[in-house]
């Protein structure tokens, strides 16, 4: 099977390791990965911030770039949700390609739970709002992580609660964003986890920034990076 990888502008620029890990997992499972180099951004920041006009060319560009792919895979629940739920709102004439968040693609399309990973660490999962409430990916990340050799998965006290990132909310309402983030960080620290994992690096950048400011040794990792790890 051949898929188009939508890396997202965020991961491309800030977290290229997540893209490399996504490629590693997919190729290990026999998927042929293609990276259309003309891709840029799904337009989520513009859309969610009210810059609707600026969003239109990005949405059209996305459709052009990924036209013809049987499936598009992305290591971002948030950007997958943007394409799936909002590209048609921004431009009703655009043909929205089938975009899967990575765990959806692994579990639903490939039917794989055990991806052959080895990661001997205690991991807390931040479920991310867009995973839960826009994509409804449910326990797919849990199932994938639970099948990882050596991994111990611990549950947060308030697993469904927002971390407070929220895109430009994180700066427009920075005090509230930080208050929410610090509560999430306390929750994570309370579990004793070594690693905080999530399907979105945007949440992790926010939470990682708070952890880093505290000098905490807890690492933030995208799910793909854990699933790519082997002996």
């Amino acid at each position, binding site marked *: 099977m051949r898929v188009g990888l939508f*890396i997202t*502008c965020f*991961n*491309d*620029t*800030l*977290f*290229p390791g997540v*893209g*490399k890990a996504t490629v590693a997992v997919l190729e290990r499972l026999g998927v042929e990965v293609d*990276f259309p*180099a003309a*891709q*840029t*951004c799904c*337009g989520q*920041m*513009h*859309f*969610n*911030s*009210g*810059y609707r006009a*600026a969003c239109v*060319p*990005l949405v059209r*560009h996305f459709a052009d770039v990924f036209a013809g792919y049987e499936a598009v895979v992305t290591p971002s629940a948030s950007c997958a949700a943007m394409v799936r739920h909002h590209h048609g709102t921004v431009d009703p004439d655009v043909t929205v390609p089938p975009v899967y968040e990575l765990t959806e693609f692994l579990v639903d399309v490939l039917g794989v739970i055990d991806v052959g990973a080895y990661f001997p660490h205690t991991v807390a999962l931040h479920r991310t*709002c*867009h995973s*839960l*409430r*826009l994509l409804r990916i449910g326990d797919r990340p849990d199932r994938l992580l639970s099948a990882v050799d050596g991994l111990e998965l611990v549950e947060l006290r308030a697993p469904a*609660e*927002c971390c*407070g990132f*929220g*895109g*430009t*909310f*994180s*700066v*427009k*309402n*920075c*005090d*509230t*964003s*930080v*208050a*929410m*983030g*610090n*509560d999430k960080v306390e929750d994570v620290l309370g579990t004793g986890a070594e690693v905080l994992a999530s399907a979105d690096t945007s949440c992790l*950048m*926010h939470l*990682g*920034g*708070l952890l*880093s*400011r505290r000098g905490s040794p807890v690492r933030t990792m995208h799910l793909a990076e854990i699933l790519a790890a082997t002996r």
Partner: protein
Amino acid sequence: MSTPTFLGMPPFPSTAREALKDGQLRANLGRATATIRDKRLRAIGELPDWEALRETGAAIKDDVLARLPELLLQLEANVTRAGGTVHWARDAADANRIVADIVKRHEATEVVKVKSMATQEIELNAALEDEGIDVWETDLAELIVQLGHDLPSHILVPAIHRNRTEIRDIFLREMAAAGRPAPVDLTDEPAALAEAARLHLREKFLRARVAVSGGNFAVADTGTIVVLESEGNGRMCLTLPEVLVTVLGIEKLVPTWADLEVFLQLLPRSSTAERMNPYTSMWTGVTPGDGPQEFHLVLLDNGRTGTLADPVGRQALRCIRCSACLNVCPVYARTGGRAYGSAYPGPIGAILTPQLRGINQHRVDEQTASLPFASSLCGACFDACPVRIDIPEVLVHLRAKVVEQQHGHLGERALMAAAGATFARPGRLAAAERFGGALLGGARRLRLRGPGWVHAWFGARDLTPPARESFRTWWRKRVH
């Protein structure tokens, strides 16, 4: 008694910052919302057809909104036929004048009130006080807010920001000036506080000649008004005084009596997490010899027609004021309701208030413009809403209006334009990535100092720097 007002409050980020400093407020709110959240989940979990009920509730309300003129005229005809008088109020000033005139015509100097969001919205209490009329809130939490010279912070539990010790102090300090004083040995036991309120209110119920209420529902095909409450204070106000004035938003209609079946399941389970609320009062006009002998229904527009004009935003008018969205909102749980600067706080307030204040028709003030941004778009509110209002969808829709109205500082507009231009061409994005990577790629983490958005991020957080080598560069090297 002087009534504070939401008017003139600063934009949400400032009020939120102040509220976040109040550790007592956050503790009170966190505890209260967590409790009611869990209870609500249990209450709705009992109903196997909860999702179908939500869809039905939304469909009935959408039908009402589509046929509003016809249904309002039907309601007016049926209320009038049953001996009531219907008044039409275009805005808050209209409605307040109508109510004040009724009270003055009866030479009454005071009114007792049933908890009502519509009268909060139009700030009726302040308007009546300006006319020399004493207004007594009789809902326990509204009483606490009123005695505390405070503003409500929750639709259902207006004093949610207060704990019982604070309430005891307010009662001891303030009750005497408003009527029967609190017992000097008042404790902060809930039963003792309730008893003090009961005794304080009882003399007002028995004395007042005019009552003012809102309404949860109005049934068009019978002319019946419905009020749901928990304390029995509503039943007192709705039955004892000679004159009853009900202020009702025009969207509060249901077409038929049978439609109540849906909402009387949706509302209690969503609001108080009860299968059924303790008191449901229903009345149709005037019944000779029983209850108020004069009934006035004030139908309030106050921005609702303007809200109805927007195809996306109008779903906010489905709201049945249950406050489930407040209780699940992580922003509300930390800032409290007063930060929203409106009678309608929380997620529903963030989409309803700007529309009632005319955002669909004209440029709004800065405080109003800040409300659609008071959300991380986490979506918990949509999941909780019993009438399926897609609050995040409306928030984003209203943000676009705010941007169109040229709110927001120039820096943000420039940044968005620059980002748009960069994303328009893959070559530009690649160049930006190379530039950022070369400049900052060596750092393990960024910690910057600066004004505005720089401080907004870096005040409490570090930042991941751009990678030395972007993914697309890595991919190109890998393939070739």
